[in-house]
């Protein structure tokens, strides 16, 4: 059974067909990249999977269960977490708080127990902190000491991207949807993030779907590449095959004038 399965998805915004007839399966432990020119519908696809939008037609199955129609928080509880193309961190909260909030949905204590600080609640809180540090440790020590207690708005751009990824991981998801994880990073940071994404899979056991524009990153880590253009899937397969596909070249470069 595939971890995630999209069956003939359609989504239109008014007259604009943002996604049309997209089918896709993602198996456990895979790293799948979605590429395509600007406006191809990559982010829209993520929004459909995570319940931000409802598909007009088609089905989304996660671990064999239909999840279309669920709200984003319910989707997250099922085990899908995402990052956003334009960072959406809790800007005025600290790094630690940012990574604690995604664990809130797993909290069993009631709000009254939380106010009274019952032993169960304190234990859960302790666990949450441990998990937060564990997720941050993927990114080395840079976010671990004093930065933990700094508000996000003082962080550098690359650190914010890292915080957002740690935040998605902290939801306890199986599947991570990363929307342009390397946007705004320099070559060195991109290289580092490439390795980290691979470690997400190898050490963290996550399955990963990512949207990327940086082809060297895509080529280096993807098990499979899917190409979208004008909302349609125009190619799928190995990185080398896909980039040499004439349809893909046409989508990126335009048709050669005859």
């Amino acid at each position, binding site marked *: 059974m595939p971890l995630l399965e999209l069956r003939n998805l359609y989504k239109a915004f008014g007259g604009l067909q943002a996604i049309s007839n997209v089918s896709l399966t993602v198996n456990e432990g895979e790293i799948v990249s979605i590429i395509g020119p600007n406006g191809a519908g990559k982010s829209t696809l993520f929004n459909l999977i995570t319940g931000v939008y409802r598909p007009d037609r088609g089905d989304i199955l996660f671990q064999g269960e239909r999840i279309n129609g669920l709200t984003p928080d319910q989707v*997250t509880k099922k085990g899908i977490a995402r990052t956003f193309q334009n960072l959406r*961190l809790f*800007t005025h*909260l600290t790094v630690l708080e940012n990574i604690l909030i995604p664990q*809130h949905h797993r909290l069993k204590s009631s709000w009254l127990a939380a106010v009274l600080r019952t032993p169960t609640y304190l234990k859960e809180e302790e666990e949450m902190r441990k998990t937060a540090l564990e997720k941050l440790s993927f990114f080395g020590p840079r976010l671990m*000491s004093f930065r933990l*207690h700094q508000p996000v708005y003082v962080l550098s751009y690359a650190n914010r991207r890292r915080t957002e990824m740690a935040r998605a991981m902290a939801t306890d998801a199986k599947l991570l949807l990363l929307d342009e994880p390397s946007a705004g990073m320099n*070559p060195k940071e991109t*290289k580092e993030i490439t390795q980290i994404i691979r470690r997400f899979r190898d050490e963290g056991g996550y399955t990963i779907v990512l949207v990327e524009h940086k082809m060297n990153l895509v080529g280096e880590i993807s098990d499979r590449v899917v190409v979208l253009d004008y909302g349609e899937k125009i190619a799928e397969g190995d990185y080398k095959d896909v980039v040499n596909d004439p349809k893909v070249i046409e989508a990126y470069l335009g048709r050669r004038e005859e």
Partner: protein
Amino acid sequence: MRNTLLTLATLGIAVLGLYLLTQAEGSSGLLSAITLIFIWGIAAISLNLINGQLGILSLGHHGFMLIGGYVTALLMLPERERAPFRTRLLSDWARDHLDLDKWLRALGLDYVANSVDLKFVIALFLAGIAAAIVGVIVGAPSLRLKGDYLAIVTFGFGEIIRLLPNAPEVAAFTNGPLGIKGIPGNAGGVWWTFFAFLFVLWFLSRLKFSSYGRAFEGIREDEIAAEAMGVNLAYHKVLAFTISAFFAGVAGGLYASYLQSVDTQTFNFFVTFFLLVAISLGGLGSITGAVLGTAIVVLVRIYGGFLEEAYPAYVGYTGAALLMLGAFAFSAYIRKARRLRPVIETKHYIFGALGLGLLLVAFLFRGEPWMTQTVQFFGMRKILLAVILILIMIYRREGIMGRAEFSWKLVFGPREDIPTEEQRKQDAWLSNPDLNPDLQKEDDDASA
């Protein structure tokens, strides 16, 4: 450990100070000011839960307080005040049955019924519950509406609740425009409100620094992201409204008991307005700020009375002139602090000169009849508050405290968010290739 001791010491000093104050002669004015700060403080902290922590502008807080006030009033009204001529519009049923004393005695809890204090605790709790139930209803639209639209809806709810007691059908419970009079005052005086205030402060700070509080703040920061991270928006919004309404109801009950009466004018929109001023002044989202802001607002309202007395006109002119000169100096100070050039603009010079001129006029013509006739400005306190608010909004939008909370760590350290020398060095080692040869190698790899 140290922090607990400091907190206990502060509490001890507060209790001692309050005790000495209650014993001192002629302190009743100050004591009632303190009582009001506690009561309005509770209301402000609870409003801050919605407006500051959840980030939803709610304008219906007076409605919750009114419900708490009426419930407390009705339940606590002593037998002799229930005489038909005093409660003309109250239905016989409500007069005879909505009586906490009777309920308790029916349950055989006579020793509770004999203590006004215990009865008061129960009445306040029930007042909170009643307000909380309405809070659920008012909170529900917040699931579909956002921003200004939601603010208008909460305002509408607040006004509906305020006007309801006058409706003939409801008057059977509220005694209509006559209101309810003769409620027993806070039995223990200022102590009552003091401990209620401490409890609410404790409760809502605990809530704020719990996982639920973080979820609220996540919603404030970015609703879409919070939802994507698994926070159930509907549940948390309604929860915040309910808890906030509960404590608003308690504050309303305390206030009714402070005034020993309630009617429809007790809780009008100005109540919410003053609370909004208080929390905006103190810093939206900060409990410390809410308390500070409340203290300022209450003190201005109580001790600002001299602003509204009758004075000879030249006092008014002098006051206006001094204000203008003060504004002149203040603007120069701000511009200097912000390193703006020129420090004093031409228009500021003109403004300052006008102030000086006015001062001169007031001095030179102080004997003239048009200068000695008395004038009186009503509403000066409200104007002063409005001016303070405007200044805060222009020069420090985030309020006195911003989003920060008072904590002993903030004052005495250690500050965890500021790197120690060692951490700073380690950080530099991690990120600066000039110091760290490993990084240099990676750099070459990356560019290769």
